């Protein structure tokens, strides 16, 4: 296994807004189009616009993106990305939303903060908990944000690039250790 380079910054080329970018712009929500994720429209939103945008996309009859497939967290080169995959139960459209928190904005010892969509969309509940557990993104406003896959007293967030296991489980010879 090798240490990999993180995916870098996206190119600074301004892309034309796609179908959903235009829809959001019509309703006064600014977004930025990123390069497509395998042919699916990808937009970047600021955290403060997330709730409004997701509610609009979910409930408007033109878009009807009412199926939240997954919420994932990615630690990129200099940002923490919270990635939302939206599908629809009634039409074929797909959309990827990214909320990026620059690492320079996160004080030492704190977690990056992204507003939660779980209060109005139950499907996000467990996915946000999982992302908090594994990648360490704090979803502000989540009703019950605690670890879901790891034990409640686990230290660190295992999918971070700087994560090291607390105890070297294979070479631990200490008789006092519970492993």
């Amino acid at each position, binding site marked *: 296994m090798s240490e*990999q380079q993180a995916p870098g910054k996206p190119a600074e080329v301004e892309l034309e807004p796609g179908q959903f970018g235009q829809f959001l712009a019509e309703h006064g929500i600014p977004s930025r189009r990123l390069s497509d994720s395998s042919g699916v429209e990808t937009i970047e939103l600021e955290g403060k616009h997330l709730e409004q945008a997701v509610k609009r996309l979910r409930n408007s009859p033109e878009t009807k993106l009412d199926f939240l497939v997954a919420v994932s967290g990615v630690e990129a080169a200099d940002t923490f990305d919270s990635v939302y995959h939206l599908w629809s139960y009634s039409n074929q459209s797909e959309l990827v939303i990214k909320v990026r928190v620059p690492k320079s904005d996160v004080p030492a010892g704190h977690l990056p903060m992204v507003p939660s969509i779980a209060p109005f969309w139950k499907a996000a509940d467990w996915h946000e908990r999982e992302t908090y557990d594994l990648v360490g993104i704090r979803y502000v406003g989540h009703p019950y944000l605690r670890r879901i896959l790891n034990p409640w007293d686990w230290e660190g967030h*295992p999918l971070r690039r700087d994560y090291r296991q607390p105890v070297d489980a294979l070479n631990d010879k200490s008789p006092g250790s519970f492993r």
Partner: protein
Amino acid sequence: MSTELLKTSGLKTDEMIINMGPQHPATHGVLRLLLTLDGEFVKHCEPVIGHLHRAQEWQGQNRTWFQYQALIDRVDYLSGMFTSWALAKAAERIDGLKLPLRAEYMRVIVAEMNRISSHLLWLGTYLIDLGAMFGFPFYPFREREKLLDLFEAIAGQRMMFNYIRIGGVQREAPPGWFAKLKQFTQEFPDRVDEYEAIVTKNPIFLKRTKGVGILGKELAMEYGVTGPSLRAAGVNFDLRKFKPYSVYDQLDFEVPLGEGEGDTWDRYMCRVKEMRQSNEIIKQCLAKIPGGTSEELRERRRQCNSCGKDDCPNCGGDLRIMVKKQNAGLRIKAGEGFDAVESPRGILGCYIVSTGGDTAYRFKWRNPSFSNLSVLPALLVGHPIADIMAIFGSLDVILPDVDR
């Protein structure tokens, strides 16, 4: 009866908090339910998961693509073909690989066989969950055994197949495999009739399942529930029809929907009908697969002495099972993508961020059981404790798939 007495007699009852699991025999793995009970009835339920967490995503990020393919069958041990397929599909989408037609047909055949075997195991164990200890569970296992034998013949393994690979499938079927599968598809509908004769109109079964654990349309869509549990609520959402992938658009099959309001019995009926449809799909694939059975293909290849050239009508093009032989140096182009397949439990997706290295940068699995289990607390409230397993079992949750 006793609760009726309590309600009318003005007696005060206290709430009780109990643990169900983690080692409960009916939880299909290791699930702990933290229940708040009012007498016999559930007032609040919190599933505590993660007992089977094996850090599948972390392992994927620290292993080469080739190594990781062997590992992901373990995510959902009852439908390993689908986890392999989701990974292969997402990687192929990023890489822009186009598969030969024979490989696509082979994938559909083994996947539908896997769907049948998964539903059969569900049927047997679900009846045990409901207390049917009279030996019925052995009937579905009889048919499942035949499928597992076929899997063993083609992939070398009975459950952890590692058969679907990035760029195609692992190997050609051995001689006689197609004939055996054909024989299975011919006798299978009669076997399903047998199960239905025992179960479907059984008065005890009806009492345990009719009107129990109603998962309505709105509730299911709110929680992102997919698969037969969603279709039993009447939502026509099957990825095989909705966004046809592979060769599903060339096949003729129906998506069974629930007729009622989405109770436990509807979910049972949906799965039974799905088994019949999967059987039909396999039949059609066997008739349509380019190159025919492996014996026919071998006979054709004898004519050109297995030259292996791209433009050979007997070796190249659609008659291959792999785009290019994969080896340990397999790499996927830089990029990111999400792709999903319709597994027996719902939409199984894989989100990959690749930087073009020998390992992936980030994996995220979207497991159907994970989302389907999150609806359980909403379903259980107000039901007696005896119904918990009837409802939980009907969601067909596999705990390793939840915890990965």
